[in-house]
Structures are given as C-alpha cells and as structure tokens.
C-alpha cells in the first residue's frame, strides 16, 4: 500500500498516470494541492521558449585552453582501409600465395588462364562422355521397352482376331439356321398345300404319313 508521497513520486517518475494519481490524492488536500501545482509547473516546463540564445565566442575559449594540442588521428581506420585494399589487389591480380612443403611462396601466375582452359576442356570432355553413356543406356532401355510392347500388341491383335472369327462363324451358323427355317416355312406355306392338293386328287398316295404331312 503506497502512501500519498509515494503515489505522488510515482506519478512524477512516470509510473502512474495523471488520472490515477488525481484519483488517489483527491481526498488529501495537501497532496492534491501539490499535485495540481506540479501539473502547472510541468505544463510551464513543456511550453516552448523562443528567447534567443546570446552568441558567445566559445572558439576563443577552446583555443586558449586546448588549441595547442595537435589533433591526433586514430591509426586503426587507416590500417583497416589499407588491409582491405591489399586483399582486393590479391584477389584480382594473378598473385598467388602458396604453401608447398613447408615453404611459403608468392607467385605471379600468368598461366592461370591456360590452366583454367585445360581444366575446362577436361571437364567438358568428361561431361560429354557421361552424356553419351547416358544416351546409349536410354536408347537400349527404349528398344527393350518397344519390343515388349510389340509382343503385347501382337498377342492382343491375335486374340482379337480369334474372337472376331469365332463371332463371324456363330453369325454364319445363325444365318444358315435362319435360312433353313425360312425355307422350311416357305415350303410349309406354299409347297405343302399344293402337294397335299395334288396327293388328295390322286388315288395313289405312297408318301402319306400318319399325321397327313408329307415330307419333301
């Protein structure tokens, strides 16, 4: 629990809002009065001031006191820039620093581009060979796959052909049966009555069956 002084000081320190502080101090005339006065002072302190600042010769003061000193410049920024420039030259130029057999050698390697060209040629040849091998393998795979597919196609066509032939034969048989049925029907409708009439008129009827139907 804070007392009024602590509340007021918390507000001054910005830990309490004006509304909170006002609410808590309202009951105490003394502290509330201080709070209101402090608010007036704060407003006054925040109001802008436009009074011109007089010109004071501070250069003279400085020169009298410190003018004798020579400006010291730091050495490390220059060193840093120098090292950076050196690193840049090393990386751009064909200068090479190599450690061989415990000896550090600094070389101005002008054949660098020839070596690079050779390396490039070797790499290209290797790449070409790899590509050819890959293409051959692909071709072989393709041929095998094609042969398999042809066999499958042949089987499929043969089977289809057989099915078609069987169907044709069935159709032919059915057609023949229909023809026979049709012939028989025609005979029954046209020929048989005539035959029967002829037989009925003759005295001799050697082919008559029990049912009265004569076979052709």
């Amino acid at each position, binding site marked *: 629990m804070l007392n009024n002084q602590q509340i007021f000081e918390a507000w001054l*320190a910005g830990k309490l809002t004006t509304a909170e502080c006002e609410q808590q101090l309202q009951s105490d005339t003394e502290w509330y*009065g*201080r709070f209101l006065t402090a608010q007036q002072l704060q407003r006054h302190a925040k109001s802008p001031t436009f*009074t011109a*600042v007089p010109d*004071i010769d501070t250069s003279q003061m*400085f020169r009298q006191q410190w003018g004798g000193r020579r400006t010291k410049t730091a050495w490390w920024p220059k060193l840093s820039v120098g090292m950076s420039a050196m690193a840049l030259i090393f990386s751009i130029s064909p200068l090479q620093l190599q450690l061989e057999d415990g000896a550090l050698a600094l070389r101005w390697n002008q054949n660098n581009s020839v070596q690079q060209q050779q390396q490039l040629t070797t790499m290209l040849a290797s790449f070409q060979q790899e590509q050819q091998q890959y293409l051959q393998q692909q071709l072989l795979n393709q041929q095998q796959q094609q042969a398999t597919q042809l066999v499958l196609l042949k089987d499929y066509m043969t089977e289809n052909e057989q099915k078609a032939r069987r169907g044709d034969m069935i159709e032919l048989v059915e057609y023949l049966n229909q023809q026979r049925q049709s012939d028989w029907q025609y005979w029954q409708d046209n020929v048989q009555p005539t035959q029967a009439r002829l037989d009925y008129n003759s005295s001799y009827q050697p082919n008559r069956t029990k049912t009265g139907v004569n076979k052709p």
Partner: protein
Amino acid sequence: MFKRSDESLINKALDGDERAWHQLVSRYQSMLYHYGLRLMGNPDDARDLLQDVLMVLCRNLAQFRGDSSFKTWLFGIANYRAMDMLRKRKPTQDIDDSPDLFNDDEPSQEARLHGQQTQKIVQQQLKYLPADQRLVVELRFYQQFTFDEIADQLAISSNTVKSRFYAALDKLRTQLEVAHVEQSANF
C-alpha cells in the same frame, strides 16, 4: 544522421578537435541559457552564467570521468556557479526589477488566452521562491533530473532535496492562488 555521444565529442575535443567542442556546446547551450533565465531572472545574468559555465566546462573538460551522465555533470557545474552568482548578487536588488521572460510587447491574441496568462503567472511566481528551492524545482521539472541525480549534483541528501521540493510546491501553490485572486480582481 548518426549522432555522436557526448563522451565521444569530449574525447575528440580533448584531442584538439574544435568542431567536436562546438557540437558539444551547441547541444547544451540553449538548455543552459534558459536554465539561467529562469534561475537568475534576467537575460544579462543568464548570459553571464552561460559564459561562466562554458568557461569552467572548457577548463575542466578533462576532469569528466563518465561516472554520471555528461548532462548531470554539466548541471553540477551550472548549479554551483548559479548559486555563487545568486549569493554575490546585491542584496538591494529588487527581484521585481528583473524583466519578465514573456515579451509584453507582442500584442498577439494568443497572449491574452488564459493558458498563456497562467504560464506567465507561474514564471513570475517562480522568481519569489528562495534560490535553493527554485533550483530544485528547475532541476526536477525543467531539466527532468531525478531526486537522486539532483542530490548528487548539489552534494546533499535525497531527503533534503525532497524537503526543498515540497516546500517549494507548497509556497508556490499559495503564491499562485494569491496571484490568481489578484488577477481576477484586476479584471
């Protein structure tokens, strides 16, 4: 734009860099002058105080160790010089003789507004506070120092600072009430 720290400017100034010194001065010059105006009550004394503080600062720049902020250290010097000047001031000098910081020659409408009048009254009444109380009010409200920082600057205890601060508030409250009554009577 990259802003150099006070410490960096001080180091450069100590190495003889005049530009760093000017940068450091320009950072606090206005603050110090207005502090002087409020505390001393007139522009001449404020100017003298500013010049005095800057001279002391220039002379003692190497003594800044960074134990506190530069502003705290600088206002420590300013407080000492201001109190010294206030002590040396002629006892016969009437405080009412000192001009107001608000310019009465400007007959703007805004100046007639109540808020502006209140600000003027506050400014006037601050002059009637005892110097030690006025200083604490100045440092707390206008320079935004904490009680502990003010105690460090004035080399007194924090409780003494608070005691002066609350005494100043009580006195100022009474003065402001009287001033408001008088102002109302004049209208």
